[in-house]
C-alpha cells in the first residue's frame, strides 16, 4: 500500500482502517449536523408553520370582520335599534308595560281594575315579565283590548284569559300577559366571533314592525256562521 506522509505517521495497528477514515469522518460530521442543527430546526419549522397557519386564519377572519363592520351603515342600524326597541325594550321597563296596559284599556273603553307584575320571569322564558291584568267592560271593550295588545308595537303575549260576569253585570277579564325585554348585546372577549348575518325573514320582520300599529285588528279567520256579536249578553 502506498502511504502519504501523514498516513505513515499513524501507528501501524490503525493503518488498516485508513481507507475508511474519510467516510467515517463525513458520517460523524453529518450525524453531528443532523443532531445539533437539522432535527431541532425541523421541530421549530413545524411549530412556526402551524403558528403561521393559525395566525393566517385568524388574520383572515379578523380582516373579514373588520371590513364587514366598516361596511355597516350606523345610521340605519340606529334606526333599526329604535324600531326593535319599540317592540322589545332593552330593560325590564315594568312601568312602561303597566302604562301601556292602562293606555290600551282606555282606548278600548275598558277600565283597568288591577295591573301588576306577578313574576319577573315567565316559566322557561328568559328576559320576560309576567303581568296580571284585570280589566272591566263590555265584550267589545275586552276584545278591543286584546286586539290592541296583539297588534301593539311593543310585543306582548296574552298567556291566559278568564272572563266572568261580575256582580254589576259587566264583564271582568283576568289576563296573564307576558312582556319581553332584550338587553344590549355583550361583546365577547374573542374578537374573531363573526358578525351575525341577517336573513330575509328578519328583514321582513323589520318592515312589519314599522307597519305594526296599536289599533289594527288581525284578519278574522272565523268560519261563516250566524252567531252573536256578544255571547255574554242575553240578547
Amino acid at each position, binding site marked *: 500500500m502506498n502511504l502519504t506522509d501523514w498516513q505513515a505517521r499513524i501507528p501501524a495497528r490503525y493503518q488498516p482502517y485508513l481507507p475508511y477514515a474519510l467516510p467515517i469522518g463525513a458520517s460523524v460530521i*453529518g450525524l453531528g449536523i443532523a443532531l445539533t442543527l437539522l432535527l431541532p430546526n425541523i421541530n421549530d419549522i413545524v411549530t*412556526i408553520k402551524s403558528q403561521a397557519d393559525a395566525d393566517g386564519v385568524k388574520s383572515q377572519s*379578523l380582516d373579514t370582520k373588520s371590513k364587514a363592520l366598516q361596511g355597516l351603515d350606523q345610521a340605519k342600524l340606529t334606526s333599526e335599534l329604535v324600531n326593535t326597541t319599540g317592540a322589545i325594550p332593552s330593560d325590564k321597563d315594568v312601568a312602561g308595560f303597566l302604562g301601556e296596559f292602562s293606555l290600551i284599556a282606555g282606548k278600548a273603553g275598558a277600565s283597568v281594575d288591577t295591573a301588576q307584575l306577578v313574576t319577573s320571569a315567565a316559566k322557561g322564558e328568559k328576559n320576560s315579565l309576567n303581568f296580571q291584568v284585570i280589566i272591566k267592560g263590555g265584550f267589545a271593550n275586552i276584545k278591543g283590548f286584546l286586539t290592541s295588545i296583539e297588534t301593539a308595537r311593543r310585543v306582548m303575549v296574552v298567556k291566559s284569559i278568564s272572563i266572568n*260576569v261580575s256582580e254589576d253585570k259587566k264583564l271582568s277579564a283576568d289576563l296573564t300577559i307576558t312582556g319581553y325585554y332584550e338587553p344590549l348585546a355583550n361583546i365577547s372577549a374573542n374578537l374573531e366571533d363573526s358578525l351575525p348575518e341577517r336573513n330575509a325573514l328578519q328583514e321582513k320582520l323589520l318592515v312589519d314592525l314599522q307597519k305594526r300599529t296599536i289599533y289594527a285588528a288581525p284578519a278574522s279567520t272565523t268560519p261563516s256562521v250566524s252567531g252573536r256579536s256578544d255571547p255574554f249578553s242575553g240578547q
Partner: protein
Amino acid sequence: MPSSPGINLLPEEGREEERTKQRKQVLALSSAGILLVIIILTLGSYAGAAYFRSQDTAFQTKIDASSKAITGLKSVEILDRTVNNKLIRLQSVLANYPKFSTLLDDIAAFTPNGVTLTSLSFDSAGKLALAGLASSPANFGDFVNVLKDPQKGGAKFSNVEIISVAGGGKQGDYRFSLSMTRKGAP
C-alpha cells in the same frame, strides 16, 4: 490469442487492490454525498424557518391592525348584535303567537241565540273552559253541535266535552259547562 470470458489474468494481489480502491471511492463519494445532502437540508430548514417566521410576522401585523379597527368599531358591533338579538327574540315570540281576539270572535260566532255565556277561560296549554246558561235543551244541543261541526266549531276546536248540564233554574234555564281544546294552540 482469444480470451475466455470470466477469466481475469491479473494477479490475485492486483485484483484485491483494484477492488479496495473502488470500494474506497464508493464509500468516499457516498459519505460526501450524504454530508452534502445533510448540509443542504440544514440550510433549507433554516431558510424555511425564516420564511415561515416572516409570514407569521406579516400575519401578526395584519391581526394587530384588524384588532385595532374592530375595537374602534365596538359601538357599531354592539348595535348590530343588539338589533340581531332583538330580531331573533321577536321571531321566536311571534312564531306561535296566540291571538285571543280571534278566539273571542270564534266563540261569539258559534254561540247561538238562546245561549248566554257566564264565564270563559283559556290557559296557555290551549284548554278552553266555557260555562253559561241555555234557555232550552235544544239551544244547548245546537251550541254543542255547532262546536263539534267540522265545518264550523270543529275547524277551530277539538275534544269538545260536556262537563255538566243541569236544568230547572229559577227562570227555567239550563246551566252548563263545557271544555275543549283550541286547535293549533302552542
